[in-house]
């Protein structure tokens, strides 16, 4: 059942050949995170290549969201190290600002700022953090909004938009910072079924542009379709990392098989 920790890094670093680059964009080494005695992420070791799309799957509470929050430095890791392009970002006391500029995150619950228009939501960080002129920030925002079919929503407030539109705005808000990596945390879980498609289309488009993406998801069919690799987490541990065609048809681990049988039956 349990594998030794020495064995994990090698399997985790098995990046598809087409994506092999001299450097991984993100490298996680034995990353652990506890909340009051509960180990939510347990010695996670992973490499994520430039332009790769990695899907994290696993039951609720398996540590997917916490792992993404750790990568964005919203949660400090308790142990282990994280590198972004050869720079360690898990050093205690490191200023998280510059890292967050480069790693965008989108949340399950959108978390748009309800008191600001769509345009202000998108341009706030570019103006305050990247010191862009208002005109420049707005033109970037307009381009992105048009790209995702939201050009007529710039002046709306978030509560006037559907869930799918809000989530697309949240993605645009993260993209406006020109990140090198996008972390997507169950971004379709809070949506009505008929709105899931429009958000997944945006993710497909992002992948098409070569963005490095880490996506925590319950949408197995989507993971199978777009992922370069799929990572199965259980109780905070990486159980298996494999390309989707292997993961979904012939997983090596018994726990993966059990999990997939359970979720695919539904």
């Amino acid at each position: 059942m349990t594998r030794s920790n020495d064995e994990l890094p090698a399997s985790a670093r098995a990046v598809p050949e087409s994506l092999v680059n001299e450097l991984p964009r993100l490298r996680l080494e034995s990353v652990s995170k506890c909340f009051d005695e509960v180990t939510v992420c347990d010695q996670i070791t992973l490499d994520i290549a430039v332009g790769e799309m990695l899907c994290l799957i696993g039951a609720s509470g398996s540590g997917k969201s916490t792992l993404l929050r750790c990568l964005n430095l919203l949660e400090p890791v308790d142990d282990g190290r994280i590198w972004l392009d050869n720079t360690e970002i898990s050093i205690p006391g490191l200023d998280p600002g510059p890292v967050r500029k480069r790693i965008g995150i989108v949340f399950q619950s959108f978390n748009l700022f309800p008191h600001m228009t769509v345009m202000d939501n998108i341009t706030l960080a570019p103006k305050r953090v990247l010191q862009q002129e208002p005109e420049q920030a707005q033109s970037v925002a307009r381009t992105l909004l048009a790209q995702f079919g939201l050009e007529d929503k710039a002046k709306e407030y978030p509560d006037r938009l559907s869930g799918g539109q809000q989530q697309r705005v949240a993605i645009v808000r993260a993209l406006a910072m020109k990140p090198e990596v996008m972390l997507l945390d169950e971004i379709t879980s809070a949506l009505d079924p008929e709105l899931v498609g429009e958000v997944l289309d945006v993710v497909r488009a992002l992948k098409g542009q070569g963005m490095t993406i880490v996506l925590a998801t319950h949408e197995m069919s989507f993971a199978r379709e777009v992922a370069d690799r799929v990572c199965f987490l259980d109780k905070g541990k990486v159980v298996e990392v494999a390309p989707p065609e292997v993961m979904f048809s012939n997983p090596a681990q018994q726990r993966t098989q059990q999990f997939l049988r359970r979720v695919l039956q539904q």
Partner: protein
Amino acid sequence: MTPRQRYEQSERRRSVIVAAVSLAAVGAVLAWLVPMAPGWEAVKRSFFNWPILVKTFPTLLKAFMLDVMIFAWSLPLIIVLALVIALCRNVRSAALFPLRVFGAFYTDIFRGVPTILLVYLIGFGIPGLGLPRPWNSPYLWGTVALVLTYSAYVAEVLRSGIESVHASQRSAAHSLGLSEADTMRYVVLPQAIRRQIPAMMNFVIALQKDVALLSFIGPVELLRQANVYKSLMANFTPYVGAAIIFLCVTIPATRYTDHLLAKQRAQRS
């Protein structure tokens, strides 16, 4: 009109009639009972004396302008100071810990002392230092006492507003690389203030009345003017006149606050 609408209309009409009849009945009973009290004639003479009311009202109104002035310049000060104190109580960095202690002390002390006591202590105490004019005016220092008390209350309202903004909003702001200060300024504070406006309106209404506390230390504002008339005319009607003037301002303000609260409730549901 559908049968349902007809039914609802008749129900509405019925409840309006019942409410009107019951109100009229209570009014009639009071109008019949109160004059039966043995002292009613005397009370009528000394509290509801129409000629005296007509004679004193214009001066009372003029004196009320002083209340309005004190109110008008203390309100912005209260808001600014309350904001500063609320932010002090929210600082996280260890180097600024003294600010946190200061904020906690400030709210504890100025909320804990009765307003009238503070008006006396500051309004008489500081001019007692023998400062040159205009720094010895009780009008000035009485207002300062009001500002200190009210800013402590409003600061607490703001602080609870800041804490009521969901942690995910901070996360979202941080994840975009915004600094702590920018997160507070652009994301948390605007939402906190908007949410707490009805609660703060209650303090605005209370302040309108509490300006009258300054009458105890000198400025001839509405209550003190009424007091002067009472002594001159040996009649309490000027007090009733003063009450009418206060109500003319506070009742609309109260209704407006209720309206804001109802609107907020409607938005949440």
